[in-house]
C-alpha cells in the first residue's frame, strides 16, 4: 500500500522553512488558515501573516498590494473561493499589472479542496472550473501537484520564481507518486512510466490512477507512457508532442470539467503539433455532489474518473489507431 500524506501539512511546513530563509514572504488567509495549515506560519511570523476574514476579494487584492511592494505574497484558501469567486480581482489586481518586463504581480495563490474529492461538502464546493478559469488569464501560471513531494518542491520554486501562480492541492491525503529525489521545473512534465503504445497524461490525484491503469494495461501487454503534467500552464508542449509522435494516442484524466481544462490544454498542443486520437476523462460538463470520504471513489466513478476508465479509454484509442 502506498504511503498517504497530507498536502496541506506539507504546504504549511514548507512555508515556514521558506519564511525563515526569505523575510519578504508573507501569507494572507481568509478564515481557513487552520485548514490550510498556514496558521503556524502566523505564529512564527506574526508580522507577516494576515487573516482578512471571510473576504476573498479582499484576500486576493491585499495580497496584490503586498506583492506590489516587493513581498512574495502567498494567498490561500479553498479552491472554490478563489478562481470562481475572485476572477476579477485575480485578473485585474494580480495578473494584469505589469511593468519593467515583470508580468503580473508576485502573488502565489495556493488553494486546497480542488476538484470533486472535496466530497461531503457537495457540488457547490467542488471547484471543477479552476484550470479553465486560471489558464485563460494571461501571465497566470497553473500548477497541480500530485503528491506532497511535489507540493513541497513547487512551493519552494514558486517562492523564488517571479510572477503570479495558481497551485491547486487536494483535500484528502494523497499517495506518494514521486521519490524525494524527483526534480521539478515549471513548464516541464515528468515521465513517470515510459511506454510505446499509448500515453496517459494526468495531474494531481489522477496521476496515481494513471499509474494504476498503466499497471493493469501492462498485464494485457499494452505499454503505456505515464506523464505527470503538474505544470498545466506553461505546459510541456515538447513532451506532449513527443508522446503523441511516439505512442500514437493520448488519454488525459483530470479532476475537473473536461471543458477548457487539463485535457483541453493537452489537446491544444496535440492538435497543433502531431494530431493523434485522444480521450479526455473528467467531469463531463456536470456538477458533482456530496460523498462521504469512503464514498468519494463512487463519486469519481460516477464521472468516469477511475483507473479502469483510463485503461478502457486507452484500449478504445488503440482499436481506432490500428
Amino acid at each position: 500500500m502506498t504511503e498517504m500524506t497530507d498536502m496541506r501539512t506539507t504546504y504549511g511546513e514548507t512555508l515556514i522553512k521558506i519564511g525563515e530563509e526569505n523575510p519578504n514572504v508573507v501569507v494572507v488567509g481568509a478564515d481557513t488558515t487552520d485548514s490550510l495549515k498556514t496558521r503556524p506560519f502566523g505564529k512564527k511570523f506574526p508580522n507577516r501573516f494576515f487573516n482578512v476574514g471571510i473576504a476573498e476579494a479582499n484576500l486576493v487584492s491585499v495580497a496584490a498590494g503586498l506583492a506590489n511592494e516587493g513581498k512574495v505574497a502567498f494567498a490561500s484558501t479553498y479552491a472554490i473561493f478563489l478562481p470562481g469567486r475572485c476572477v476579477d480581482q485575480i485578473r485585474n489586481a494580480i495578473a494584469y499589472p505589469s511593468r519593467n518586463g515583470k508580468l503580473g504581480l508576485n502573488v502565489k495563490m495556493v488553494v486546497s479542496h480542488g476538484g470533486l474529492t472535496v466530497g461531503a461538502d457537495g457540488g457547490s464546493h467542488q471547484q471543477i472550473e479552476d484550470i479553465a478559469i486560471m489558464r485563460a488569464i494571461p501571465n497566470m501560471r497553473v500548477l497541480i501537484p500530485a503528491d506532497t513531494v511535489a507540493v513541497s518542491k513547487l512551493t519552494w520554486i514558486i517562492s523564488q520564481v517571479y510572477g503570479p501562480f495558481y497551485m491547486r492541492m487536494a483535500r484528502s491525503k494523497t499517495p506518494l507518486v514521486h521519490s524525494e529525489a524527483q526534480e521539478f521545473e515549471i513548464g516541464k512534465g515528468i515521465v513517470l512510466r515510459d511506454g510505446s503504445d499509448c500515453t496517459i497524461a494526468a495531474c494531481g490525484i489522477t496521476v496515481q490512477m494513471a499509474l494504476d491503469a498503466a499497471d493493469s494495461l501492462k498485464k494485457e501487454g499494452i505499454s503505456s507512457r505515464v506523464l505527470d503534467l503538474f505544470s498545466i500552464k506553461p505546459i510541456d508542449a515538447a513532451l506532449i508532442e513527443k508522446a503523441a509522435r511516439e505512442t500514437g494516442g493520448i488519454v488525459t484524466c483530470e479532476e475537473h470539467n473536461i471543458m477548457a481544462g487539463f485535457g483541453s490544454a493537452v489537446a491544444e498542443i496535440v492538435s497543433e503539433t502531431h494530431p493523434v486520437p485522444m480521450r479526455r476523462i473528467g467531469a463531463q460538463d456536470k456538477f458533482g455532489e456530496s460523498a462521504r470520504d469512503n464514498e468519494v471513489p463512487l463519486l469519481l466513478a460516477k464521472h468516469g474518473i477511475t483507473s479502469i476508465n483510463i485503461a478502457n479509454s486507452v484500449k478504445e484509442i488503440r482499436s481506432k489507431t490500428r
Partner: protein
Amino acid sequence: MFDFGYSISYFGKDMGLNYYHILKRVREARKLVIKGTTTAGSGHPGGSFSMAEIMGCILFKFLRYDPKNPLWEDRDRMVLSKGHASPGLFSNLAVAGYFDKSEIETLRKFESRLQGHPDYKCPGVEFCGGSLGIGLSFSIGMALAARIDSKTHRIYTVIGDGESDEGQVWEAAMAASKYKLDNLTVFLDRNFIQQDDYTERVMPLDEELASDDISEMWKNAARWKIGDKWRSFGWNVIEIDGHRIEQIVKATNSALQTKGTPSIIVSRTVKGKMVEHMEDNPKWHGVAPSPKIAPIIDLELDCQFLIAPSIIAGDMANLENEVKRAAHGRADFVHLDVMDGLFVANKTFDHNKIKELRPITPIPFDAHLMINEPVKHIKDYVEAGSDIITVHAEVCDESSFGEIHDTLRANEVSIGLALNPETELPPWAERFIADLDQLIVMSVVPGKSGQKYIESSHEKVQRIAKILAEKKFTGLIEADGGVDLSNVESCFLDGARVFVGGSAIIGQKDVRATIVEFRKKILYARRKLLIQKAYSLGGSELVSKWIDLHEVGKKKSELVQIAKEAGYV
C-alpha cells in the same frame, strides 16, 4: 529632487497652504482632461473634475515623489481606485512632470501609455484601477508592506461613491480598521452621481433622493449618513467640501496626525465641477466634450473667480467676528489689509492680529501688506499664518522682491504684488510675472475703506491683463477698492478674477447673501463672455448648441435670456 513634502516646520510654524500653487495646477490638469478626452472622443471628465482639487492637494501639497524616479522606494503612494477618472490622474501626473503634457493627446489611443484606465504603462501610476472596489484592498496591502518594512511613506487612496456599492470596499474597510492602518488616508469623492443616475437613486449611501434636485443632499447635513457608516467601521472620519483646497489640506493634516486608525476624508464634491454644463449632470459621467465646445470649456476654466471680503470694513474692535462672518458667508479668502501708518496714513493691525485670528478658520488668509519695507517684516507675516502675502510695488525693488519671493515660496505662501492707482507695472517686476500668484490692481488710493471705485481702473486692468498674458502670467488679478455689485461684472470682464469686497460685503448685514449676489453678478458676466466666445467660434448655431448642453436646473433658460439680450441668438 522630489516635489513638495509634508508641511514641515519652518520658523517653527506650519507652512502656508500653497494655495495658488495648487490652484494653478488643478486648473491646468482640468484643461488637460478636456484636451485628452476631446481628442480621444471618450473618457470620464465628470469624475475627473469632482476629484480635481483632492488630487491636486495630494500631489502638490502632501505626496513625496520623484518624477525622475517613479519607483523611488520611499515615495508616498497615491492609488486611484475609481480608475475611470484616469484622465484626471494622467493630467495631474503630466503637470507633476512624469511625462510631457502633450502626451495627454494620446489618451485612449492605440499603443499609448495613457490607457483608458490607470495602468503601469504610465509612469507614476501606482495601481491598475478600473474594475471598481479593488483599490482600497490593494492599498491595505501597500500599507501593511510599509509597516513590515518600518517605512514611513504613506498611502493616499481615492475611492468613488458609486464605487462604494461594491461589497469589497466594506471588506477592506473592516480589514484596514482591524490592522489599525494609520499610514493610510482615503478620500471618498462624494459626487452623488454614478453611471446610471444619482447615487441616492441607484443605491443610496446617505438616504434616498426624493426629488430631482441633487442639491437637496448637499444642503442638508442631517441627511449625510455615509460618514456614520465609516465611523461604525472604526475609521477616523473627516467630512469636508471637496473643492475647497484649505479644507482638504486641513483634513489631510489631521488625518496624518491621527494614530491607531485609518482615516477617510468624506469629500462632498460636484461631478463635472468648474464646467457649468457638466456640473451635477449624470450624462457627463463618461462622455467626452465635442471638439467645437472644447475651447469654450477652456475659457470657462480660465474664468474661475474668488471672493475676498476685507474685514477692515467691519468692526475694527471685533475683527474676530468679522472673520467669522466672512467664513460663514462662504468667502473664498479673508482679505486682511495691513496698514502701518507709514506707507499709508492709516494704521490697522499687524502680524500679531493675524496670528490671533488664524485659528478661527482654515479659509486662506490673503494678507495685503500696505507697509513700508515689507522685506523686513515678511517672515512675521509668514509666521502669523498668512497663505497669500501681497506687497506693494512702490516699496519694493528687484532685489527685495526677489528676497520676499524666495521666502514665500520656501514657506508655501502664495506671492502677490500690488499696484497703487498711479503705479504701473515696474520693469523690474517683469522677471517675476510668470511665477507670480496674484496681482492686486488698486482701484482706490489705499489707506481707508469705503472709497469710490476709480473709473479709469477698468482700462488699467484691461491693459495690464494683456501685458500679463503676454508674459505668461498664470496667477489671478485681484480687484481691490470700491468693488461692489454695480461694477463687479465690469471688473470681471476687465480680467480680474479675485474680488475684494469691503463695505460692499463685510459692510452689509447679511454677508452670506451678499456674497451669493456677488457670485450671481460675476456668473452673469462670465456666461456672457462664454456666449460671446461661442459666437465668435461658430455663430448662433454654436451658441445654441452650447446652451443646449446646460440641462440641469434653470441654467438653460437663463443662458437663453442672456444670449437674446446680447443679440447672439
